[in-house]
């Protein structure tokens, strides 16, 4: 096993030399990439010996030779099915992690969205990128983030300028084009919401076809004072995919961050989400839903870090597991020394539809302040017999009753997404995944 891992790492070394040559960047970013590659060589991929990866084993996926992706061409028709009416004019497409201007459409006003490497080269955006890139998603102790950072060669830079309120949501679609099998994609996103701005961003991870691929994405989000951001993340990659993702957010004074992550796809997925409440009066909602069917594995690790007083965090993660599906939820909430008047609430609820499904859930609170309000809880259960009987007593057959309750369980999270066509599609996908046919 160890020799296999070393082999795949050396593929990355060769590819890294090519990237450096083909896509030079600003000197500071060059340094970041170089030191990230050094860290990756040192750290390698995480193994089950690490506490944070105890239940999620990457080794079987890394046995295959994985090749870092190169830019490919795609016709607009190929991605038409991933475009929604609400976002038709505000849509950025990354193909295998590479910003694709032809497929993107940015007719909306006020919001900046461009190739991250171009932003780094730009006089104004370069400064912002330099300040915030690799600041919240640190690569020093995380091999996967290090690898993503080393392969920074495109990606998206999003800027919502000061006082700009954008009504129309911006969609970022991450398409995996697996015409070459076993490609590895390293999408990188930096979102900066400046003071008192307001926007909605919808990340959509999809596969073009059914071949195995490896996505290793890193999204960094910065909310400056008084900014508001609604952030949806939907992962529906194909069922052979290995999907690793990090979302790292820092919140300015009085800012408000509302994020909803829906995980349905990939054979194995891992999402690390962290929110640092680094200034007074910030508030966040960090919600999610994982629907795990047969042979799927979904792991969520979340860290909510209250560093300053008077911040609120609300977290609701729900899971639906069927067949031999497996899920992991690990949620840490830190309340640092001096973070008085913190209000932190964390809940993880799991619905097991099969005897063979399994979830490992571990909510953790670590509190170093004394004047705080914190609560957390986890539940694992099956469908409620009384609820089922109520539906039966109204003439709804047992299969439909089961599906309807499962749908209702999911809806609490899916219902947060304010894009009607996306929500309708997710409802349908949730039900299809559960082998049913209810129309909303």
């Amino acid at each position, binding site marked *: 096993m160890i020799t296999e891992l070393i082999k795949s790492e050396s593929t990355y070394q060769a590819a890294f030399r090519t990237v450096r040559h083909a896509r030079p960047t600003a000197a500071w970013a060059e340094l970041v990439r170089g030191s990230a590659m050094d860290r990756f060589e040192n750290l390698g991929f995480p193994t089950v010996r690490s506490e944070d990866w105890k239940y999620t084993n990457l080794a079987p996926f890394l046995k295959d030779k994985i090749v870092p992706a190169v830019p490919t061409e795609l016709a607009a028709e190929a991605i038409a099915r991933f475009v929604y009416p609400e976002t038709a004019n505000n849509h950025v497409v990354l193909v295998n992690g590479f910003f694709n201007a032809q497929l993107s459409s940015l007719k909306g006003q006020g919001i900046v969205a461009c190739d991250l490497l171009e932003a780094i080269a730009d006089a104004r955006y370069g400064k912002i990128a330099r300040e915030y890139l690799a600041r919240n998603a640190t690569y020093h102790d995380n091999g996967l983030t290090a690898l993503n950072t080393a392969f920074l060669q495109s990606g998206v830079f999003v800027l919502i300028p000061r006082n700009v309120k954008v009504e129309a949501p911006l969609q970022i679609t991450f398409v995996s084009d697996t015409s070459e099998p076993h490609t590895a994609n390293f999408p990188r996103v930096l979102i900066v919401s400046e003071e008192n701005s307001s926007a909605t961003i919808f990340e959509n991870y999809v596969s073009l076809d059914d071949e195995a691929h490896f996505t290793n994405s890193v999204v960094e989000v910065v909310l400056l004072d008084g900014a508001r951001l609604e952030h949806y993340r939907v992962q529906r990659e194909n069922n052979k995919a290995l999907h690793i993702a990090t979302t790292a957010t820092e919140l300015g004074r009085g800012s408000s961050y509302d994020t909803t992550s829906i995980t349905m796809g990939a054979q194995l997925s891992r999402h690390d989400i962290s929110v640092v409440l680094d200034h007074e009066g910030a508030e966040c909602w960090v919600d999610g839903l994982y629907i795990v069917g047969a042979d799927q594995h979904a792991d969520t690790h979340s860290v909510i870090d209250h560093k300053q007083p008077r911040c609120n965090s609300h977290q609701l993660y729900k899971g639906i597991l069927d067949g031999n599906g497996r899920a992991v939820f690990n949620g840490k909430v830190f309340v640092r020394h001096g973070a008085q008047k913190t209000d932190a609430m964390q809940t993880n609820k799991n619905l097991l539809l099969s005897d063979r499904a399994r979830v490992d859930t571990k909510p953790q609170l670590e509190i170093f302040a004394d004047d705080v309000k914190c609560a957390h809880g986890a539940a694992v259960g099956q469908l409620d*017999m*009384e*609820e089922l*009987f*109520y*539906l*039966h*007593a*109204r*003439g*709804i*057959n*047992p299969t*439909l*009753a089961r599906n*309807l*309750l499962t*749908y*209702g*369980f*999911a*809806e*609490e999270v899916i*219902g947060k997404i304010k894009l009607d066509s996306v929500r309708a599609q997710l409802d349908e996908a949730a039900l299809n995944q559960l082998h049913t046919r*209810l*129309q*909303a």
Partner: protein
Amino acid sequence: MLEIKNLHATVDGNEILRGINLTIKKGEIHAIMGPNGSGKSTLAKVLAGHPDYEVTAGEVIYEGRNLLELAPDERAREGVFMAFQYPIEVPGVSNAQFLRLAYNEKRKHLGEEELDPLEFKDLLKERAKVVEMEASFMSRSVNEGFSGGEKKRNEILQMAVLQPKLAILDETDSGLDIDALRVVAGGVNQLRTPDNAIIVVTHYQRLLNYIVPDYVHVLAHGRIAREGGKELALELEEKGYDWIKTPETNGTGSGATAN
């Protein structure tokens, strides 16, 4: 329409119903009264097919068929409806969705065409008048965050949509203030037809001022201890339940007694 013969039922091994005999014809309203623990709610749940209740003896013939052989959802599609004493909350499923699904399941069963959401919306609007329910309730999750009165009204709304042949109202009056009681009872009266029958299970006579029964049956210790017309309810209101004694009861009511 309904014939209950020597019905015995247990829950968790305790015998609650100990030989109920009851005949109900279409167009009739029957009140089932009795003190707490007498078995009246158990009777309602057994008729609806709640899985916790086991029928150990006797039979129930509904429209010429053995009701006890039908699964709960089949009973419902055949026109048996129980309004729950404690309506269940179904988070994430809107009232309109739920009602349309239930309605269409029944239509399918009867070989009729299903209604699409728009057609159903019109029907729902019409039926909602029966219990004076506002449109905002239709988009809310079933019973979630409803007050006690709203939940009971929602039960009668379901009855209005499903138009059962046999409706069993299990303590529909409990927890209702006088205004809500009037609305709920008014709704039930509007849904009464010469072709359906209604069983009103209640502890108090109060509801029967509004839904006037043709017959009153008083349960004690799992048997019908007394029967009469609507005036029996008034007598109970005056004297309480203490004066009613079943001839063979041993008075413990523990339910451990075998027949």
